[in-house]
């Protein structure tokens, strides 16, 4: 659907380097990376706002690398929605229809459908300065969707919204993707929203693609320390192979993996939510240990627990109810473990 081959974009103080990307039809594709990694720049490059220095951009097999912005049949929804302040919702939404040879009748039908689908009935005569963040987002989506673009590009669509509108907006994006069978490319630095919305994605760092593929695979099987850290994987440690188990470097601690790791791999990692609390004397996992609780810190309804065993520190995320029920506190010992499938090497 959208393919980028050997894309480079050089600015005085930043570059996108040798970007290869494949976005399939009906994908909800997430470009994920920390602030300043170049993800928004890449989105603007795909849109044509920042022309690529070299490389090829294909849309449905057609080379659109040198097409002007307005001829690409892509639509971009900005982080702050960029609604035209001098036009009301009605005029904002219909703005692009005059440039796409859409008849008035067709535009009217699409408008009626979108107003109803996105719940804009009560605000069509309002101006942007009288809209809430969630309403602005819906108008910006309607303004793009009315043009029936081949691909919808979203630049951090949830980051400008109050937490109150977050859930509503996420569901709306999911609905748009599902019902209109849109191909969407979204930029985000928030892995929670990416996991909820996207099916495929790419991690970008310093203007380079680090990893791309299925979102769950990026989340559960990162291929580098950077990606592992970025997607919230913890307990990242260097190891060496000791028969069929992994021995953590510098200690005697051995961990049994699900399958023999790639000989080129050097690190292992375990997601903190995969480290389970065991009732003493009743281990349920192949890898089970008893350790000393070094710290307990709140992270919402869960608690982040630091456990030390045989000189190795593990980080687990446990429900507050467990901590209360088993009277766990700093300095006490606790039994814990993790299934072999939770051990990931890279």
């Amino acid at each position: 659907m959208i393919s980028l081959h050997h894309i480079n974009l050089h600015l005085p103080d930043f570059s996108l380097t040798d970007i290869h990307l494949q976005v399939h039809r009906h994908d909800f594709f997430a470009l994920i990376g920390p602030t300043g990694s170049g993800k928004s720049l890449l989105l603007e490059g795909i849109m044509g706002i920042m022309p690529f220095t070299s490389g090829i951009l294909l849309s449905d097999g057609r080379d659109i690398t040198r097409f002007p912005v307005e001829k690409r049949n892509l639509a971009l929804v900005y982080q702050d929605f960029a609604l035209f302040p001098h036009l009301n919702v009605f005029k904002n939404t219909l703005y692009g229809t005059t440039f796409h040879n859409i008849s008035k009748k067709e535009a009217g039908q699409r408008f009626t459908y979108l107003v109803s689908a996105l719940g804009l009935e009560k605000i069509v005569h309002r101006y942007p300065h009288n809209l809430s963040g969630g309403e602005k987002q819906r108008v910006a989506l309607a303004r793009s969707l009315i043009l029936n673009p081949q691909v919808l590009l979203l630049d951090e669509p949830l980051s400008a919204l109050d937490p109150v509108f977050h859930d509503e907006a996420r569901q709306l994006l999911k609905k748009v993707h599902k019902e209109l069978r849109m191909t969407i490319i979204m930029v985000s630095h928030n892995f929670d929203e990416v996991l909820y919305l996207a099916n495929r994605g790419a991690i970008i760092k310093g203007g380079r693609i680090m990893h791309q593929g299925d979102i769950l695979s990026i989340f559960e099987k990162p291929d580098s320390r950077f990606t592992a850290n970025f997607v919230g994987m913890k307990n990242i440690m260097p190891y060496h192979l000791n028969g069929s188990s992994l021995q953590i470097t510098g200690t005697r601690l051995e961990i049994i993996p699900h399958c023999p790791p790639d000989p080129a791999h050097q690190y292992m990692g375990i997601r903190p939510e995969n480290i389970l609390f065991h009732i003493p004397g009743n281990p349920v996992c192949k890898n089970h240990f008893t350790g000393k609780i070094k710290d307990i810190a709140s992270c919402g309804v869960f608690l982040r627990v630091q456990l030390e065993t045989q000189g190795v520190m593990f980080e687990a995320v446990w429900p507050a109810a467990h901590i209360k029920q088993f009277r766990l506190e700093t300095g006490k010992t606790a039994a814990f473990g993790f299934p072999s499938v939770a051990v990931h090497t890279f």
Partner: protein
Amino acid sequence: MKQMDLMGWLFLFLGLPLILLLTLPLISMTTEPSAAMLKETIADKDVVAAIARSISLSLCAAGLAFIMGTPLAYLLARKELPGKRLLEGIIDLPIMIPHPVVGIAILSLAGRNHPIGHFLSDVGIQIMGTKTGIICVLLFVGLPFYINTVKSGFDSVPVRLENASRTLGAGALTTFIRITFPLTWRHMILGIIMCTARAISEFGAVVIVAYHPMTAPVMIYERFTAFGLKYSQPIAVWLIFISFVLFVMLRMLSKSIHPYNR
């Protein structure tokens, strides 16, 4: 609005001489002429013609600034041109140089000895002693005020809005007409007001390029040197009054258009 505190009163006390410096001469000048004298002055056809000429030629200069200065202001606000800082400096130059120098510079360019002056003469354009010459001078002195005001207007429109318009299928020129222009035309009105105001008050350059046909400031100067203060004041009062009404109307027009700015 914050209540005045001790510091506020101190600052007001320090600024008071300036307020008095600005207002007292104007109050004195506008209240001194009697009603009969003002009536007699406005009945004088030469006075009416001079004031009308000052205002109309100033508006002409502002109109030219609008037509040619708007694209230039847009370029300066949006594009990275080679020598952009130099160009900005050149545009600001008329604010700094003495106004008779402006008149002399324009005359030297428009003289028969200069190729441009020769060319203008050949195509029938006279600068010396004509309305064209006056407009030329007024445009020269008013242009920085127009360009700088409109440029700050363009600066205040996020580039993202223009990009958003492009992503929705509008070309660059259509985007300018449908997005950028409606969002900046209050600045353009303000620029026209600034440019016109500067042009109406211009004396030093005009008097060199065209003593006749006479503009209001030249007439005020002539009446002052020929007949004294008493005969020049009423013209000045009428000029100030008419200009004031004109500017208030323009400001009201610019305020009334945009519902999103209420």
